[in-house]
Structure formats: C-alpha cells, structure tokens
C-alpha cells in the first residue's frame, strides 16, 4: 500500500521546493514528500542554461541546471522522497488540522495524501499577451520569453529568425542574447516603463554587448500577419503610458517575444483559502513564511517574484525550517494560539514587504525583510524604525522596481524593544 501520510508535503520541486525540503530535513524532519509536476526536479532552472546563478550561495557562477543539481544532490543524499510528473490538482484542510493534497500521476493514478504541514513552492508563470490586451491579429509567432527559452534550450527548436521583444524582464533580456547566439536577428527590445524591469547586468550583457537597442517608454500597438507574425508596430508612450500618435515604428519580423512580468502561480493557494496580497499576488505571510492557514508555508516565486535564485533558496530554507518547527509543536500538542504579531508597515515608495507581520519571539538570530520599490529612486536612505526609533539606516544610490531590496532585523535590535508595537520601513531622502 502506497504511503499516503507525511509530516510535510512540498508542492513544487524547483529551487524553492528543493531548498525547503533540504532545510526541513536538516532541522530534524524525516517524513517529507516533494511533488513536482514536470518530468524532473529543478523547475525552471532546467531551461536557464546561461550562467550567473549561485554567486551568493556558492560564490561561483553556475548555470541553472548546475545550480539545481547541487540541491537535487542534497535532496538525494538525504534520501528525501519525491514524485515527479505529478500534478497536484487540489489542496484542502480537514477538520483535524491535517492538510489534504490530491495529485495525479501515471503510476499512482489519483493520489489522496495527508500531511501536517504544507509548503507552497509552485513558482510563477509569465503574463501572457491576453493579460496586456495588445491589439491586433493572433497569428503564430507570438511567444512568452520563457516558452521561447524552453523551445530553444530544451527542445532545440528555433521559434523565429527576426525578433521583436516587448518587455525588458530578465527572461526577455536573456532570450535576446540567446536568440542572437542561435542565429536569429533581434531587432529591438521595447519597454513600456521609463526603466527596465530587469537586472542592470542583464541589460549590459544581453543587449548592449550585442548592439540590440532598448527603447524605454515604448509599447506594441499592432501585430500584423494573419497566419504568422509579419510585422510588429511599436510606439512611444507618454507619461500616462498611452501610445503617442505619430511615433509608430514598424518592424518586419516573424516573431514577437513577450517578457512582461511574472505572476505567482497561486491557484492551489486560493483553493485552500489562503489570504492573498493584491500587490504581490502571493500569500500574505508572517516571519515564519506561514500563510493565514496554520501549517501552510510559502516560499520562492509563488510568494513574490524574485530576481535571483540565491534569494529563493535562502527564503525557502526558512520555510523548511519553520515547517519542521511547526510539525514538532503539532506533535507535542503545543501549537500556540494565534501569536501576537507586529505588522510591518512600509512607506516612501515601497510597494510591499515579505513578511507582513512578525512575532519577535520567533526570530532566533535575524530575519530578512524583503521588499521592492515602485519606481526608480536615486540617493535615498532605507530606514528601519522600531516603535518610532530609528534602528537602521542605509544609503542606497539607486533602487529600481526590478531589483529586490532587503532589511535585516536582528535579534540584538529586537531585544532593545521587549514591548515592541510597530515595525516600519521607510524610504527617506538621503
């Protein structure tokens, strides 16, 4: 009889799920199952064959598959169970506090699993053309950058030979370089916003180094071609992000790649009744990365979209450790009633923070509070206030929406405020 009960089930075997599993194991948890929908572990890293992964974690420049393999090795060394090609179709909670997971694969059929704690690590997906309401025909030759990346890097197929890219997210930038290396001509990369959504290093290494123009404050206003893309018309946009008549430029091409944002994939979380953030499109979590449903944790791109996988691994390790602690408390019958939590409030142009609330007693050494700003900012200070007292101030020459920021809340600082009531992070004039 197939085992159907685990202490911890992790949905997703990408970088977040792998790091969470390893960390939960290292925190003492032995009953773990990782469920992965793709054929193999590693998630989206498997198609990211460029290097630059792992600078923080391993002080090395690894490719995506290499980075994933390091964690897959850690998983297998520990003998942690996983099932790949297994799609979780629904998640729920039972009355005794157990989480119920229904999944499908070809060997087990329908799997009905139970667990004490659950980690959501489903990652994210790309925004599609439809989400943008780009007008025009709907021919072949329109791909999200990630789909093109899979076609090129995994399947060995060339999606097109003359390419326009809309959006300057990291995957789009990486694909500008990749398509060029594979023999295609990338004509232009158009970005709606007056700044790029990608990392600075990718703009330099993927566009500048190949002479591909980046047109900020531009968007696609028309797609021509009834069967296959024949041309794409872009235009400059004003401050209202609406196209300015008369600025249209027509590019004859056979392909339009879209790199217009990533969306955390939270259909299962919503089905479970987890409270969601309208800013990140991910669950609202506390310092343990626990969602509004006790015993359900979230980490990685399902929680909020990251720029660097190193931060995903770090975050997921916290979720794994927290889940292991939850299971210990559950087994001891000492799950505390709703703990007093202090909200983290953000202002001065910060869009959100993860986590949004903190129980100071739960922090052993430090806690990284991650956030993003909503616009490009220069010469500012990021300031942390506890109960209105300035505890930390760091100067930032440039901050951009495309680069995640963090503030570290240390035990030492928390100990200065035994009766803490408020945590504020502000961007102030520097």
């Amino acid at each position: 009889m197939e085992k159907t009960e685990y202490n911890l089930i992790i949905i997703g075997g990408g970088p977040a799920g792998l790091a969470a599993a390893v960390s939960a194991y290292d925190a003492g948890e032995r009953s773990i199952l990782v469920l992965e929908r793709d054929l193999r572990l590693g998630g989206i890293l498997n198609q990211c064959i460029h290097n630059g992964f792992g600078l923080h974690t391993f002080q090395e420049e690894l490719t995506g598959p290499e980075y994933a393999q390091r964690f897959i090795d850690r998983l297998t060394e520990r003998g942690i169970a996983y099932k790949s090609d297994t799609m979780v179709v629904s998640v729920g909670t039972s009355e005794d506090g157990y989480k119920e997971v229904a999944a499908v694969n070809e060997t087990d059929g329908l799997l009905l699993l139970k667990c004490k704690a659950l980690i959501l690590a489903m990652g994210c997906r790309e925004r599609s053309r439809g989400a943008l309401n780009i007008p025009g025909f709907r021919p072949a030759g329109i791909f999200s950058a990630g789909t093109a990346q899979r076609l090129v890097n995994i399947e060995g197929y060339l999606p097109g030979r003359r390419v326009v890219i809309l959006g300057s997210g990291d995957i789009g930038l990486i694909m500008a370089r990749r398509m060029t290396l594979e023999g295609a001509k990338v004509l232009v990369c158009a970005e709606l916003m007056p700044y790029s959504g990608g990392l600075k290093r990718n703009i330099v290494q993927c566009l500048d180094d190949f002479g591909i123009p980046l047109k900020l404050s531009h968007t696609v206003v028309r797609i021509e071609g009834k069967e296959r893309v024949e041309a794409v018309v872009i235009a400059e946009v004003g401050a209202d992000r609406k196209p300015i008549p008369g600025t249209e430029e027509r590019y004859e091409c056979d392909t339009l790649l879209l790199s217009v944002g990533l969306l955390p994939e939270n259909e299962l979380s919503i089905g479970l009744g987890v409270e969601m953030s309208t800013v990140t499109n991910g669950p609202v979590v506390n310092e343990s990365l626990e969602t509004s449903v006790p015993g359900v944790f979230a980490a990685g791109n399902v929680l909020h979209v990251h720029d660097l996988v190193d931060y995903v691994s770090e975050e997921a390790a916290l979720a794994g450790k927290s889940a292991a602690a939850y299971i210990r408390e559950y087994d001891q019958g000492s799950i505390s009633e709703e703990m007093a939590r202090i909200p983290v409030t953000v202002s001065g142009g910060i869009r959100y923070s993860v986590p949004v609330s903190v129980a100071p007693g739960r922090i052993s050494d430090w806690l990284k509070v991650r956030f993003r700003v909503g616009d490009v900012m220069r010469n500012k200070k990021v300031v942390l206030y506890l109960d209105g007292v300035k505890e930390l101030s760091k100067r930032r020459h440039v901050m951009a929406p495309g680069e995640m920021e963090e503030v570290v809340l240390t035990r030492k600082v928390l100990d200065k405020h035994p009766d803490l009531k408020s945590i504020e992070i502000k961007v102030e004039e520097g």
Partner: protein
Amino acid sequence: MMYDAVIIGAGITGCATARFLAKYKGRFCVMERSEDVCTGTSKANSAIIHAGFDAANGTLMAEYNLKGCRMYPELAKELEFDYKNNGSLVLALSEEDIPRLEALKENGIKNGVEGLEIVGREKLKELEPSVGRVPVAALYAPSAGIVCPFGATVAFAENAYTNGVEFRFNTEVKGLTPAEDENGEKYWIVQTANGAVRTRTVINAAGVYADILHNMVSADKIHITPRRGDYILLDRRTGGYVKHTVFQVPGKFGKGVLVSPTVHGNTIVGPTAEDIEDKEGVDTTSEGFADLMEKAGFAFDDLPLREAITSFAGLRAHEARHDFILGEVADAPGFFDCAGIESPGLTAAPAIGEETARKVAEKLGLGENPSFEGHRDGILDPKKEMIKDPEALSRLIREKPEYGRIVCRCEQISEGEILDAIRRPLGAKSLDGVKRRVRAGMGRCQSGFCSPRIMDLLAQELDIDVADVTKAGGNSKVIVGLTKDRI
C-alpha cells in the same frame, strides 16, 4: 460520382446541417476552406443560447431562435457537449429604459418565449448579486443558456462524420456552375481549390463568405458585412462573479456589451460592433477594449477586468436586411442558403440545420437513413470522472497511463485527452484544433507551458516533422527550424 448535397462551410450551421442530413440516405460532403471545423464566426462569439425575446416577431430569426433554444438541452445530452441553462437578464440602466424592457418582454411573448419576467432592483440583486449601482430593473429570461461553441460544432461534425458524411478541409469553393445530365436532371458543378465535384444540391453555410457564393448563382444579390466584435475573456478565478448572461438594453448596434459566465467557468465580456470590409479582419483594437471596459462598467461596478487572460475578435455575418436568409434560392434551383447567420445564429443553428436538411431531403426524395446513430461519445474528461468517483480515475489511469500525465497545467488537461482530440474522428491537426476540443492552452498561461509538449504529440500522431506543426493550419507554423541551423 454525384453527391446529393455539398455543404459549404464547416461552422456551426454547416456542421449542424450535416448532422441532420445524416439522418437521411444519401451522399453528403462538407467543404471547408480552412484546416478544421469551427474556425470562423463559430469560434469567436458570445457562446450564449438566446431565449428569443430580442428578434422582431415574424422574422426567421425569431422563429429559429426559439426552436434552437429549445433543442439545445436535449442535443447537449445526445451529443455530449457542454451546455448550461443559466438564464439571462437584460438590464435597464435608467427608469427610461423600463418601457424598452416591457417592449422586449411583449415581443418575447409573441415569439413564444416562456417565463419572461420584469424584475425590480431588489429581485435583480437577489438573482445577480454582483450587479452594480446603476441598473434599476431587468428582463429575466430563465430559458437562456450558455454553450461551448467549439464543443457543439465539433460534436455535430463528428456525429455527421461517423454517420457517413464526408469532410474536405483546405478546400475553398471557387465556383458553382449549374449543369444538366443526359436525363435532364439538374446538378451543380462545384469547383474547388482541389478539383471539381458534382452534386444535386448545394447548401451555402459559408458565414461571412455566404454572399459571394449566393451571388455566384443568383441575380437577387445579397450583401454580407463582416461586423467585428472584440471580446475579453477573464480567468476562471472570476467564475461565479456573474451567474446569468447579463445584457444591457439593446442599442442600435445589436445587443450591446454582455457579461456572461462561460460553460467552463470563465467570464466573457463583449462584443463591440464595428462594420468592416475584410472578411478575415479579426484583429482586435485598443478602442474596442476601451469601449468594452466602459460599457461593462454600466452593469457592474467592480468587474475584475484585470483578470483578463485573452482577447479576440469575431465577425458576425450581417446581411443588410438583418434576417436569416434560408431555403432554396428561387432563381437557382438546388441551391439552398443558410446566409446572414449572425446573432442569434449559434442558438438557431440546430433548428436551421434540421429544417435545411428536411427541405433538401424533401426536394431529392431522400429516405431515412436506417443506420443513423444520433448519439456521440464526448471526449472523456477525467476531471468529471474524478468528481463522480475518485477510484474510477485511478482505474482509468492504470489502464491508460496517459490520463495521469497532465500536460496543460492551467486547465489540467492530460495527455490522454490531447491524444483523444487528435485521434478521434475529424481529429485536431493544429494547436488551435487541440485547444478547441479539449481546452489545452486555453487557460491563464495561454499555452505558454503546454505548447511544446502538444507540438510533440501532434508531430508524433500526425507523423509529421515538428517544424511543420501549425497553430491553425496554413502558414501558421509554430517554429521556423532548429537552433543554429543557419549558422
């Protein structure tokens, strides 16, 4: 070789006609210019079954709308396609609109629509809790419904095909010539892109092209204007936001903007109405989207339009007289029109098909087809099985492991369903063909994750090179070659 009937056009009208013709003994063939059924007007519309109060009393539209609306529930069972009787509401946006609701109701009663009721704001709120602040009253029509237009068209076509009707795709009709055999029997020569065939009758179900065919054979000219309508489709997350098909009191451009659930749990908003020249002009416009968003806002205050997953445009085959043109053409014996099939065409299609088949059979004196099997097995949907009996799903996967391999994450479509879509009679030959049959690629990621795997399945099953897999036939190849093949 002589056909008894050639049907031109494999949209909902042509396929429904083919299915009802199959009840008679004879040789029938459907000719379609594109690569699949349901690629024109039938694939891009509101996907609703009108109750029948709108069309002016005494018109063919009114008559066939009512008949069609009454046929759908039974047909959906017999042919196993998705249909739901969800009822519709026409909103009055001000007190001044209420007399127009009353006029609609009166017209509906004359047309034979049952259960019509004008409800005040309180009852409206009860029926449709999401409705906004503006609407003051509504005409409630409990008999209205929603349908999967792809599912219905495919079902009619498959059932026609398994009962012996031939289908020829990529076969555009170029000319129609009347002729007479040695016994003085009249017939038609149908010239196509792939040679000519002879047939005793021709049925014109060519959608926006129906005028071109009609005008080839008749001096009584008709003119069909493609009337473009933009639509926005919202994520299934919005399912339940709206329960009924919600119209606003009709203006001069048809039925105005509607907000409706779809049978698969999405929300559809549309259409706009713009008369154009291009019979293939299905490009969407930013003006259209803006128009939809504004008008939808009259009915709902907080419609979650940011949950849009795709947008598209469809063409309504609008004939100047604004009525269906049905039946044998007076100066072209043996040529039957199903022309001007605009809204409520989807609703009316089964009734039009049944009646057209009857007329053709009567003219030719065709007897009943004794081996006709009216039931069609739908595409197996393991999700439905699972709800009924989880064990049955496991048994299915043990027998056919391909049902355990989920290819389309968003809609949770297994490889088994995709293979079924490709292998079944008149199976899918392209990504869009798969999508229309089993929804793979129709979800929130819009085929981003699943298209590489579906391409491989198509290449494998159709025994073609993966570089020749198309989005929708013709030159719509998905990839252009292999990496580095020109370096």
